[in-house]
């Protein structure tokens, strides 16, 4: 068994990122959109960790960064869900298309 | 003595303060203070003229203080990218300043017709005056632009609030056209500033004719042409030149009388002033090669204005188109590149300022009395209101260029210039002179001697107070017509400088 090459991780991350981006931009369900965003953030985390071990100049900072970004992603998800709950209670929907109170 | 120009430009602030301290209900007080506010600049400009007449050098009045410094380039050159607060005056500006101060006073005097919100009105009027005076004395482009925009804003509100039926529309089109003009102007100014590191007119003239500043990016020959075209285009909108004239007609029809007086008398002249001062002043070489186009445009303007004036039914529109037509004369004069022509153009600037102010003043009174300015609705006013009709006739004669009045001198000189350089063009253009006479007389004679209308039988004629402005204006018109040196002398040095610039 040999080491998995860096490029594999990068491609994985890129694929994850694209899936996330696609989901975030096209899905109508807010929960799925939030999940897609998490996907994108985690893609970045994979990059960080992969670079931190297999990069041109490996260093621990990448892992530290990913720790921080995980935390932040969690906070963001928490806030997002909390806001979604508040909204759901008023509008009874999680569909983005139905959030149309704000139109000119 | 250097403070005098600052006092000249900013003295209307005194009036503004007075007005702000007055309750907005006190109509008569407000009107009085409004008028009083316009007096200090008039006095100062007369003092300046007095100094000038007594032989003092106008250069002594130049004031120059540090104002803005952009960037942090003082290690290269302390003056690089600075804009100074600099005001100066020469014969040309002096004449225009005098005219501005006078016309503003007269306009304030004529503002008795304003019916509401006197406080705001007079405050804006005085701001307008600051702007106009500043425009004619500013020595660098940024300062010029500042004052220029001040006139724009205050005129916008004056038209939009106190005008006639379609005031807001008129104000908007005024704003947009002038906005575009000033945007172009701003770009030109900024390019010059960025490339030359200064906006001072003398310094710019020097840099443009000699070559760029080594420290910054160069100004190529093509760019000089582009800049000049930009300048001309910007001022052409202000002047206005066909086909960018519609806004001006609208403003002349919709604006309140005193504002039209100022607009036709002074604001339009800023375009001409800019073209002469900055176009010819800063880019003399380049100006020579575009002059012919200007002359052509001038002729078109002259004829088009005259033709349009001929077919109008509203006297105000007639006058508006006549202004366009007369502004064509300015272009013709400038385009001729002859000393006589340029002199004619400059004469026209002043002369038309006075004549237009007079005519609009009178038409304003007519409209106030009869509630209309349609030629067909008026008629036979000579019988009921003979004094008014008399002034009107006198004004129209001045406008059509009757010898002995200022209009004649300027048109004569302008065409003289053009005949020297482009005889064919001049020949075509001179048709317009005849047309001017036709449309002017048609309109005025219809109004004064046309079929009498019963409803106007009980009109009251002008009282002596109302005749004062007309009297002053006509006096000046005739004085200039009879004795052109009155104007020619102060203008001479400026003209000489311009002619040296373009190498004639």
């Amino acid at each position, binding site marked *: 068994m040999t080491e998995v090459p860096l490029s594999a991780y990068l491609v994985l991350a890129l694929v994850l990122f694209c899936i996330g981006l696609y989901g975030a931009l096209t899905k109508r369900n807010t929960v799925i959109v939030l999940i897609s965003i998490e996907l994108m953030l985690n893609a970045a985390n994979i990059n960080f960790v992969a670079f931190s071990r297999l990069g041109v100049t490996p260093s621990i*900072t990448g892992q530290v960064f990913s720790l*921080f970004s995980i935390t932040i992603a969690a906070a963001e998800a928490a806030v*997002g869900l909390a806001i979604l709950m508040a909204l759901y209670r008023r509008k009874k929907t999680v569909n983005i298309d139905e959030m149309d*109170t704000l139109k000119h | 003595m250097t403070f005098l120009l600052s006092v000249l430009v900013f003295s209307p602030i005194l009036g503004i303060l007075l007005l702000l301290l007055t309750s907005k209900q006190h109509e008569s007080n407000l009107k009085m203070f409004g008028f009083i506010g316009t007096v200090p600049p008039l006095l100062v400009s007369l003092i300046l003229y007095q100094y000038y007449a007594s032989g003092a050098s106008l250069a002594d009045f130049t004031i120059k203080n540090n104002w803005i410094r*952009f960037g942090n380039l003082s290690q290269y050159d302390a003056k690089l990218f600075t804009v100074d607060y600099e005001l100066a005056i020469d014969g040309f500006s002096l004449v225009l300043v005098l005219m501005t101060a006078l016309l503003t006073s007269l306009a304030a005097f004529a503002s008795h017709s304003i019916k509401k919100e006197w406080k705001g009105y007079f405050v804006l009027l005085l701001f307008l005056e600051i702007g106009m005076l500043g425009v004619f004395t500013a020595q660098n482009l940024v300062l010029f632009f500042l004052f220029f*925009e001040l006139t724009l804003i205050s005129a916008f509100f004056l038209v939009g609030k106190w005008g006639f039926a379609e005031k807001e529309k008129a104000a908007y089109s005024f704003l947009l056209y002038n906005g575009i003009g000033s945007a172009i102007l701003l770009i030109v100014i900024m390019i010059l500033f*960025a*490339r030359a590191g200064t906006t001072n007119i003398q310094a710019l003239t020097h840099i443009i004719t000699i070559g760029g500043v080594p420290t910054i990016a160069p100004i190529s020959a093509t760019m000089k042409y582009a800049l000049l075209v930009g300048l001309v285009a910007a001022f052409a909108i202000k002047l206005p030149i066909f086909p960018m004239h519609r806004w001006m007609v609208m403003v002349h029809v919709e604006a309140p009388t005193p504002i039209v007086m100022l607009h036709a008398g002074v604001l339009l002249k800023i375009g001409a002033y800019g073209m002469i001062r900055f176009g010819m002043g800063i880019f003399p070489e380049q100006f020579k090669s575009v002059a012919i186009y200007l002359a052509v445009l001038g002729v078109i303007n002259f004829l088009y204005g005259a033709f349009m004036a001929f077919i109008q039914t509203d006297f105000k529109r007639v006058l508006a188109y006549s202004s366009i037509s007369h502004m064509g004369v300015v272009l013709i004069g400038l385009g001729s590149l002859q000393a006589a022509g340029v002199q004619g153009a400059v004469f026209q600037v002043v002369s038309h300022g006075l004549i237009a102010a007079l005519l609009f003043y009178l038409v304003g009174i007519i409209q106030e009395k009869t509630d209309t300015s349609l030629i067909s609705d008026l008629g036979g006013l000579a019988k009921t209101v003979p004094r008014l009709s008399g002034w009107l006739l006198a004004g129209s004669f001045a406008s059509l260029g009757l010898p002995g009045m200022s209009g004649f001198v300027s048109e004569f000189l302008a065409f003289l210039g053009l005949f020297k350089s482009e005889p064919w063009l001049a020949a075509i253009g001179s048709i317009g002179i005849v047309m001017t006479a036709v449309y002017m007389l048609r309109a005025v004679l219809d109004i004064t001697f046309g079929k009498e209308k019963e409803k106007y039988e009980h009109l009251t004629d002008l009282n002596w107070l109302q005749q004062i402005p007309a009297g002053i204006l006509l006096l000046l018109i005739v004085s200039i017509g009879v004795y052109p040196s009155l104007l020619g002398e102060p203008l001479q040095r400026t003209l000489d400088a311009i002619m040296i610039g373009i190498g004639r």
Partner: protein
Amino acid sequence: MDLQTMLNYHWEAMIPEFIILGTTVLLTLLDLFWPPYIKRRRLAWIGLIGILLSLLSLLAVLPIEVVSILDDSFRLDSFAKAFKMLLLVGAAFVMLLAESYEPKEGMKEQRGEFYYLFLTALLGAMIMTSSGDLITLFIGLELLSISSYILAGIRKHHTASNEAAMKYVISGGISTAITLFGMSYLYGLTGSTNLKAMSIIMKETVDTQFLYLFGLAFFMVLVGLSFKIASAPFHMWAPDVYQGAPIPVTAFLSVVSKTAGFAIILRILLSLYREVWGDAVGAFSFFESNSIYIAFLAGITMIIGNVVALRQRNLKRLFAYSSIAHAGYLLVAFATLGGQYFLFDTFWFYLLAYLFMNLGAFAVIQVVSGNTEQEGIDMLTGLYQRSPWLAVAMGISILSLAGIPGTAGFIAKVSIFLGAFAVDPGFYVLAAIMAGTTVISYIYYFGILVQLFLRSSIIQTKPKVPAGINILVAVCVLMTILFGLAPNIALDFFHQHFGDLLDF
């Protein structure tokens, strides 16, 4: 690391942050443990005191040299000081605004949070300005963002507010993810997250593939951050969020958040890419070969912002588009890099001017809309008659936003133009778009002025102006004019205390 090393750190560099942090903690605890009968609005005053103390401490650390602590992750250089000053001043004003914010519904329970979330957001912004490491930069960014998400939805029982917050979270989340992804590449290519270390490695890179990846990372980061400053085509969230969020939050987003967004853009992109090569042979610098794309973004932003603003009837929405447009103007400065000489002072001055004019306008909007929940443009109709002072203040703010000379907005725009033209070849098209869209912006800005001054109102009630707002408006208007007429008060301060941000 022992106690000695720890105490040897230059902790004084972080005092402003510590004060804000302390105030936040204090406010949180007070909000939790104060008995319910004590008005939570008092927290705003404590918060304001905290911000002012922080500002004072910032002034106290102004003279100290560049300090870099915590493994170079926290840098107090001139850039940080300059932008922190803007942030603190802006936040202080927003706090004043928030103190008197009193909507009809949906704010009862959350009043305490309302105040200290501003502080956490401010803290995030401050960290962003002075971080020297991608990690701290990212943390600051998110601290600001997440606080803003909650702030936008702070009116829990108000649908519009909830919806605004939801949209903000989604678009903000996407942008964060994109930025982070770009950052991950930057980290991977350089093996470090320290900006200084990264820039050294990037400077030496000549490999084409690497340069290509640098470009990719650049645009990912830029796109991500474009969301923060609401530049097109990533502006979609701004109108909805601005409209739905409470007014002080809208003001905060458009002033503090935007300032921070530009600070981080400058911080990351400039410190990393300023010396990167644009191609393998080193003929161009990175910015030279890529400025066209940024310019494109800037152009689109200006056009979209100004054109779409034309048809807005809701004031907050209109200001959203206006703020998009202003982001576009600032991107022009970024695309042109301020012609090398004017980059930082342009940004700083523009943001300073924007702070005052925008906050002045928002304060008036808040007062006028009161607790009616109506934010239509017709709320301002005839304000001049109801409350001349507010109308004039609003008018001046609007004029400044439109970039009329005599106001700070003009000087700011002039700086951008200077930068656009001071290089060769100049950014003529971009500048022309900027000038053109400025004229377009006149239409809606003057539309507001028309409502303010030219129309008369149906509503006759005089808006009640709290003392805090009065001070705020007065300061904003005063500063807008002061920096318009004497910009060197600010510019000299900038140059004197921050130099050219050479230690950036």
